[in-house]
């Protein structure tokens, strides 16, 4: 199935949410800016009900806040928010790794290794390749998340990841972290090879806490 077909089958609410989310990520709307239903309805040429539903969904994802007498406003992403998100992410991705040890095959482990090598190769390139870099990193993490076979968990982690999209621009100076991240990924692969659930959980948590430490030091300069 092509990407377009997948998008076509998405409910209207989700397609509107996707559009608004990507606009927020791109900075089309500023923090605290109002997302006015009638205006959006006119702009997108659709009725207000699916827009209201989309705003509700974005509220659940943490992108907007519904404020009494003001409606939906773009929620600012503070250092505390990111701290909060990472605490949950570290815990839940650790859990995903634990559950994945029950399902992961030797073939999957080879594939993880291949992804990690591509990830590293990209990071060595001189070009500005944030998108590809993030894609391989995403593929690596996503692989064991899916292998957890816990649908609820997969869904929650997907929702969390959408929030991290807003941090993309800060991640541009990737190469300094990439070498470390690659080594940490290697340790994760080793942990999966032992099929030890405690070790897999611990290693993934440690890796995410490290990336958070790195990101936090970058963010401190901005916030």
């Amino acid at each position, binding site marked *: 199935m092509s990407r377009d077909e997948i998008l076509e089958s998405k409910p209207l609410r989700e397609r509107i949410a996707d559009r608004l989310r990507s606009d927020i990520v791109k900075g089309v709307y500023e923090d605290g800016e109002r997302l006015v*239903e009638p205006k959006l309805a006119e702009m997108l040429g659709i009725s207000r009900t699916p827009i*209201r539903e989309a705003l509700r969904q974005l509220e659940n994802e943490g992108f907007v806040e*519904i404020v009494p*007498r003001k409606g939906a406003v773009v929620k600012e992403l503070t250092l505390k928010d990111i701290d909060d998100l990472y605490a949950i992410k570290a815990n839940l991705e650790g859990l995903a790794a634990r559950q994945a040890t029950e399902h992961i095959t030797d073939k999957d482990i080879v594939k993880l290794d291949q992804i990690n090598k591509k990830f590293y190769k990209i990071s060595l390139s001189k070009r500005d390749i944030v998108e590809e870099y993030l894609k391989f990193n995403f593929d690596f993490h996503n692989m064991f998340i899916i292998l957890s076979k*816990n649908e*609820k968990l997969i869904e929650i982690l997907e929702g969390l990841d959408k929030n991290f999209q807003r941090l993309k621009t800060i991640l541009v100076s990737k190469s300094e972290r990439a070498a470390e991240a690659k080594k940490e990924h290697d340790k994760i692969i080793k942990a999966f090879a032992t099929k030890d659930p405690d070790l897999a959980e611990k290693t993934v948590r440690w890796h995410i806490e490290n990336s958070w430490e790195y990101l936090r030091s970058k963010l401190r300069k901005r916030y």
Partner: protein
Amino acid sequence: MRDLNIDSTPLSERIAGTIRDYILKGSIKPGERLTEPRLSKMLGISRTPIREALRLLEMEGFIEIFPRRGAVVTAVTDKDVDEIFILKVKLESLAARLATENLKDKDIDDLKELNRKIEKFADAKNVSVLINLNSEFHNIIISKCGNSRLVKFLEALLRQFKRATAYSFTEAGRIMRVIEEHNEIINALEKRDAEMAENLMAKHIQNGWQFIKSRVSGEVI
């Protein structure tokens, strides 16, 4: 311009609450179809807020919406209970860990008082009172974790989870264990021992999970 979304929020939310209660009580059964006209007639409300309420329930996992068929109440299987419980084990123990930094002495007193009340009602076999007291107990700890997203996730999980929790309070054996485990948790929180609070909460929820599994194994809740 008037913001209609604010005005209509409580109504769709209230309708969702009513339908959710019907599902939890079993008045509306898994597999049953919920059509907008039927609900509109049943509740005496127009269809737009009902449609929104159904979307909310869909997000919470209570129903599934199919094109041209309307909404169908989902069945909670063993696998669902497993998935929800393991998330609860991780997230609520994280909340307990974080709460040790924020809980005031007054909150600890409230927790003790609630646990005494649970003990008082344990013999009365009043399941709904016990369920409420128990959620109040857990909510105090969750609300003090200081991580608003974590609170939101747990709220959503607990709503789905209510379908399963009822079982813990239908047999005296588990109630006495619940009270004991609560006391151990209070003890750890009072000492502000983050590690211990996290571990005890994880164990408490895991024990509840084992109990429910032994009761409902193979069945659909």
